Structures are given as C-alpha cells and as structure tokens.
C-alpha cells in the first residue's frame, strides 16, 4: 500500500540492489551501518514523514508564514513537528557523532530527505538551512565560533540561513552592496539589506544565526572581494546565554505562489549601525566558503523538486484507479460499455508512464550523487575519492536543474491526470505544483546551473571528470548489450551517448571560431541532454538488475509463459515491481533517448537566432 509520498520499494531498490550501499559499509566512517540499521532508519523516517510532517502540508499552506509587528512566524502547526524532527536527530544525521550526528551516509540522507520533502517541502526548509549554516561553522569556524553557535544549531535550538541575495544582486552575487566595517576588537559592523532570505525570521527557534556575504570596506569589487560573516539575530554572551538583539530587522516577508509555510524574509542589517558580525574563515574567502553551503543546497533543491514530484505522482496513480470516467475508446460505439477507472485509458496511462520513468530516473540521479559524496569522503583510496568527487562536481548542477525541471513537469502532468479536480484546492496536486515551481528558480536559477555545467564543470580537472563518467556509461552499455531482452534499448542509449559525447568538443570549437554565443545559449539544451543521458543510463542499469531478479522469481514459480507471468505479477508485489522497473527503462529508451540525437544536432548547428534577433522585435 502506497504511503502516497514515495515508493519505498524503489528507494530500497536503489539503495541495496542498484547502487549498493553495502560498498559504503566497508569504509571506517560507516562501520556501524548494516542493512538492518538502514531498514530501520528508512522506516522511522517514513513514519515521521507520514505521521508528523505530512499533516502540516495543507494547514501550513493555508495559514502560511505570517508577519506581525516586525516579527515573522512559521505556521503554528510546524512547532511540534519541528521539535520532534530535531529531537529524533534528523537535522544533523550525516554529521560526526562529536557534533551530535550519526555519520548517516549521504545516500541515505537523500532517501530520508526525499520522504520529508515529499511530506512537506516548506517545512523542511527550516531544518535544511539550519544544517547548511551550521556546517559552514563546522568547517570554517574557529573553536570559539563552533562552541558558541554550531552545537546549538545542529541540535535545532537555533536556526540558520544563507544570506546572499540582495535587491540588486540575484544571479550576480558579485554585485552585492552589503558592507563590513572593521571594529577595533577585530569584529565587523555590518550594513546592508538582504532579500528573499528563507527562514530569515521565524519563531521555531529562539535565535537565528545568519551567514552573511558582505564586502569589507576597501576590498575589490566582484566576487573576489567578498567575505562571509556570522551574524546572529540575538547576540550571544561568552557563557552561551543570549544577550542584546543584534540590529537585524525584518522588513517584511514575501507573499508567494508556493512554499507559503516557509518564511522568505527581507532582512535589514545594521539600520541603526549596531549590527556586529564575526568573520568566518579568511578575508575575501566568502564565495569559496559559501559555495560549500550552496553545493549542498543545490542538491537539496534538486531533491525537493524530485520529492514533491514523487508525492504528486503517487497521488495521481491512486486517483487514476479511483476516478471512473468514460468507457474504453477500444469499446467502439457499444452503448452498454461501462465507464472505466481512468487508468484504463491509454492517454492517461501514457502520462503516468512518462512520469514514472522520469521520476525514477531523477531519483536514481540524486541517490547516485549522494553515494558519490559518500565515496568521495570516506573511501580509503585517494584515486577513488577523486573520481567520485569529480562526479559530484558534474552532477550537482544537473541534479539541481534537471530534477527540478522534470519535477515541475511531473507535477503538471499529475494535475492533468486529475482533470479539473486537480486545479482545485480540495486536492493536493495544485499545492504540489505551486510548491515545486520555486525549485527551478532559487539556489541559482536553472539557467545559471546550465552555465555552471558548461562554463566550469565540463573542463574541470582537464575534462577528466566528465570522461570518467562517460566511461561508466559505456561500461553499462557494453554489459546490457549482452542481454538479449534489453539489447535494442542499450543500442538506443549508445546512440544518445555518442551524440552527447561530441558536444564538449563542439563547444570549444564555437569558442575558438569566435561564436561564444552559440555555446552560451546552448547551455540549457546541453544540460537537458545530459540529464536524459544520465537518466537513461541509470534506468537501464536498473533494468538489467531487475530483469535478473524477475527471471529468478518466474523460475521459482514455474511461470514460463507470458500469461503465467502476468498472472503472477498480479499477486506478487516483487514481480510487479521489477516489471515496472523494466518498463520504465524501456519506455525511456524508446521515447526519450531517440530525441537526444536530434537535439544534439540542433546544438551542433550552432544557430544563434535568439541572440541575433533585435530586442525591439521581441514584442510589439
């Protein structure tokens, strides 16, 4: 029975059967883990997601975050769940025991994070940002800063944020104007306005610690002159107790399309010249340091997009089995034909199949990236650490942008499955769609992600990162080609792979031949074909495993004909699941992968019509 949030069987398939978490158990860092522990972690997370967090979805949306008399409030129904979530140790699960964590593998954190975000994405913003901010202090803070801020943040007693955006500095962080003036005691006086700050002000915690990007007076313009400061909402005395307010004033909160439960605040620092910040790390190292949090947040945002899509998909499947409408188109004009549950209509089935295939593809992408982070941290082999670290670099913008782009599309299709009811607030899919949309925009818009992919990640490490990822893909192709039942699908993956693999050279060529615009304007199409290639790869890799397991089930049950196999799947949930995995991969290979070649041809043609068209010609 579905929990209507996440297919936990698919989670376990990825964790145990496809990616193989047991490889991590061999590393010292994860020595305390075993399959039964992982099972329990997953089932307790599911329980918390279903029983504690999911009930806040609608209420939190209706009530929304509030702003009254200069203070922001989280929806009141978040209070108890936030406490329970932190008490159960989820906020800092992946950290070391010394700081209150349990060294939870990031792959597993991805899985539990999916459950929580599917239950209510807005809710997860509060602990998510707190974790990221505390982690900055952990890695870059002094002992004093750690003692003062970090432990309380990891425990969920104090909140955290990330303060980059300003009215004049969104995608271009380097344009920021917030300034830091040296004080005689080595600390800084901070002045400036930050906008769109998630969890910037709320009443879930008694204090909030803001990592703030600002420029020290006299430092150079652009990103290289940026430093980062720890700025608490309320000052902290040497003994850890709370002191005076720190002149961080909440101007307002935004009224948004979605994630209404998440308070998005405008914060005015030092309006009265009385806001004190402590430098985090070295001077002018702000961007480098903040990138640690941004990379984590980008993966979290991709996961949010995928998780909300998962909830939308699970709901759509359940609805399509209940909603009775129209007789079968195959029944012709028979007036006595009965109306059927809509899942019987081929166009509805097609939507569901599309959603299922992409959802499983992006889920695999996110989990594989989590796994890569674990290997890059914990492996004893330097070579392996570097290789997987390289995957993480390449995958980060793809996980963020591709998961959120497909996530929004899945939510939109879920609404289509519901028909007119989906557009109405009685059903949850309209909220899923509203909540999901922001994942394409914040934490660096998806256009910025695509630029990061081609501008920075492709050429990184002399192009070795992408090359070794491509090697993994071709290894899967060779293996799956050996399997008769999947051979033709592997051939489609190979064709897509060959086309995509030609693009990096093409981009260099555009640059050399004085056509950089052809590269830049093709960044998004490139990210999209990369996403499809990676999903196609991971789905086929999964199908290869599923096929083997399915054969074993059929053999054991003596199901040697198609009829017998169909009948078996009706009553055997395992067989049904593996059939579903194989169908996802086949569908994706048949319907999506063949488009990749043409799309690559378009990129290679190097047309730059959108760049050439005169501005005045866009609109009348």
């Amino acid at each position, binding site marked *: 029975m579905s929990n209507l949030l996440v297919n936990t069987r698919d989670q376990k398939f990825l964790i145990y059967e496809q990616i193989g978490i047991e490889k991590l158990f061999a590393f010292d860092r994860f020595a305390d883990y075993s399959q039964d522990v992982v099972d329990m972690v997953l*089932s307790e997370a599911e329980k918390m997601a279903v029983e504690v967090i999911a009930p806040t979805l609608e209420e939190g949306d209706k009530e929304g975050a509030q702003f009254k008399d200069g203070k922001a409030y989280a929806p009141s129904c978040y209070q108890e769940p936030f406490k329970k979530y932190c008490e159960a*140790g989820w906020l800092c699960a992946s950290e070391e025991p010394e700081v209150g964590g*349990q060294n939870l593998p990031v792959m597993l954190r991805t899985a539990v994070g999916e459950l929580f975000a599917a239950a209510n994405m807005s809710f997860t913003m509060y602990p998510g940002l707190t974790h990221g901010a505390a982690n900055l202090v952990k890695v870059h803070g002094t002992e004093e800063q750690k003692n003062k801020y970090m432990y309380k943040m990891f425990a969920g007693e104090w909140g955290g944020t990330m303060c980059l955006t300003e009215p004049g500095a969104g995608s271009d962080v380097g344009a920021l104007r917030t300034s830091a003036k040296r004080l005689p005691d080595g600390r800084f006086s901070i002045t400036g306005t930050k906008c769109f700050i998630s969890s910037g002000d709320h009443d879930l915690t008694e204090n909030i610690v803001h990592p703030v990007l600002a420029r020290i007076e006299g430092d150079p313009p652009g990103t290289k002159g940026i430093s980062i400061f720890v700025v608490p909402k309320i000052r902290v005395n040497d003994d850890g107790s709370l002191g005076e307010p720190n002149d961080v004033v909440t101007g307002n909160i935004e009224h948004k399309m979605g994630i209404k439960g998440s308070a998005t605040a405008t914060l005015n620092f030092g309006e009265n010249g009385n806001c004190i910040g402590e430098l985090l790390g070295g001077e002018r190292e702000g961007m480098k340091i903040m990138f640690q949090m941004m990379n984590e947040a980008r993966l979290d945002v991709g996961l949010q997009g995928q998780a909300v899509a998962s909830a939308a998909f699970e709901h759509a499947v359940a609805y399509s089995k209940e909603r009775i409408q129209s007789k079968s188109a195959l029944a012709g004009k028979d007036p006595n034909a009965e109306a059927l549950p809509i899942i019987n209509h081929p166009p509805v089935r097609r939507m569901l199949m599309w959603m299922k295939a992409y959802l499983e593809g992006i889920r695999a992408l996110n989990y594989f990236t989590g796994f890569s982070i674990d290997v890059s941290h914990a492996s004893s082999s330097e070579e392996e650490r570097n290789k997987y670290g390289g995957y993480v670099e390449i995958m980060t913008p793809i996980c963020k942008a591709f998961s959120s782009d497909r996530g929004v599309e899945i939510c939109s299709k879920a609404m289509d499955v519901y028909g007119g009811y989906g557009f109405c607030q009685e059903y949850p899919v309209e909220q899923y769609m509203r909540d999901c949309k922001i994942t394409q925009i914040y934490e660096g818009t998806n256009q910025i992600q695509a630029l990061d992919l081609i501008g920075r990640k492709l050429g990184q490490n002399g192009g070795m990162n992408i090359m070794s990822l491509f090697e993994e893909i071709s290894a899967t192709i060779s293996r799956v080609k050996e399997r008769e039942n999947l051979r033709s699908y592997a051939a489609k993956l190979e064709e897509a792979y060959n086309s995509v693999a030609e693009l990096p050279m093409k981009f260099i060529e555009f640059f050399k031949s004085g056509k950089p615009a052809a590269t830049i304007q093709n960044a998004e199409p490139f990210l999209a074909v990369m996403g499809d290639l990676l999903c196609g790869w991971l789905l086929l890799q999964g199908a290869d495993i599923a096929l083997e397991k399915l054969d074993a089930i059929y053999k054991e049950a003596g199901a040697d004909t198609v009829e017998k196999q169909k009948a078996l799947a009706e*009553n055997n*949930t*395992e067989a049904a699941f593996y059939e579903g995995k194989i169908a996802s991969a086949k569908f994706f290979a048949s319907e999506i992968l063949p488009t990749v070649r043409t799309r690559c041809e378009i990129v290679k043609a190097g047309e730059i019509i959108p760049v050439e068209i005169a501005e005045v010609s866009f609109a009348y």
Partner: protein
Amino acid sequence: MNIVVCVKQVPDTEALIKVKADGSGIDEGGIKWVMNPYDEFGVEEALKLKEKNGGDVTIVSVGPARALETIRTALAMGAEKGIHINDPALEGADAYTTASALAAAIKEIPHDIVFCGMRAIDDDAGQVGSILAELLGIPQVTVVTKLEVADGKATAVKAIEGAQLVIETSLPCVITAAKGLNEPRYASLPGIMKAKKKPVDVKDAAALGISVAAKAKIVKMMPPPERAPGKIVGGEEAAEKAAQLVKLLREEAKVI
C-alpha cells in the same frame, strides 16, 4: 524498577491484506510489519516510568525472525534489552500458548510491572494480557488510559461504558495499555544506532520448557464478502423518497 513490555509485530494498519488461496492464513508478501500500536503505548509508558524512577525496560516478543525488527524498534525508543521467543512451533500460536511462552520468559527475570497492549490489531483477541497475569499469578488492570506508580502501588484509570474506574493494585502487576495512555515517542537516529548494540536473548519453546500444544486452532480464513454496490433512492418528493427508503431498509436490508 524492572519493567517488562510485551510487544507483537503485526501488519501495518494500511497494509492490503490478502488471504491465501488455501485459507490457511494471510499472504505475507509485500506486507509492511510494524509494532502493534497498543504495544507502543506500553513501551512509552514503561520508558516514562523508567525515566522517573530509574530501572530497566525489557522487551519480550513471540514471533518469527522478522519480529526482531520490532524488538529493535522498542530498543531504539529507549528500552535496555530484549527477549525474542522464536520457535516455528509457535507460529500462529493461540492466545494461551503465546501467554505461556511470555510467562515462562518473564518468570525468569525480575518484573515489578508488565505492560501489554490491550489487544493486537491483527487477530483482535485481546486475551494475552489477562492470561499472562493469571499464569504469573499477579493482579491485572486492563484497558488502562492513565497510570501512576508510587510507593509500591499502581493506580490505574480504566474506561468502562459511561464511566471511569480508578483501580489501585499492588506490584507486580500486568497493565494492558489503551489509546489515550500517552503519545508514543519516535525512535531517534541515535537510538537506532544504539539499539544495534543492545542485547537480545533468543529462546525457543524447549529453552522455556513450555508445551506448544495449541488449545485453539484456525480452521480457515476467509476475506469478508465484497460489499454490494450502493443504491440511490428514487422519487420526486422528499416524502416519497423517505417512504421508499423505509421500505428498502425493512424489506431488503432488514435492519428495521
């Protein structure tokens, strides 16, 4: 204070239950197993008592290998140790046999108070707690919604139709937990990691010296009959519809 909690692993309330074709039981494929919700109240109450008075909480469960997961869940919530009574001969055991197994295990360990759920949501018999108290020869209070333990006595509130009984008993005693007793905590992540290292004794019927000869036997399981489709009462006027409805209730549904 030595506290014992009996827990049973049952199918999740949301699980889709299918009866096996031969009627010998339910098809366990694809079922998610959880701790019986009433037993969770027992575990929570035990942990609260321990936190207040000090002592130890021991979890006892009769069940196949998978029941260990449920014991571990209780350990992750905060109990100290477990006893897993696992014997193929006890599979599908009746209430009396289950209670005998529990009693034999509990007799061997110190116990000031023993918690059970008021019933298990799978077979809904609600007998094990009471039989267990008889076999242990100690008092019992069933269907408890509030409990206080002090000065060697337990004071329990038990809901009965239209009233509440307040019952005082000496210790040791058996308490069967009802909804309302408390709000069970969630196992924490640190709790889960610690649970793995906590001791669980595995015992079979021979080790406990009990007879496994069942007093009751399940002859056949059948799914409930499928519900017939609903009927819309026709007619123009309300009075006409009401008359039609009464007629149907009397003649077809035979409920009035």
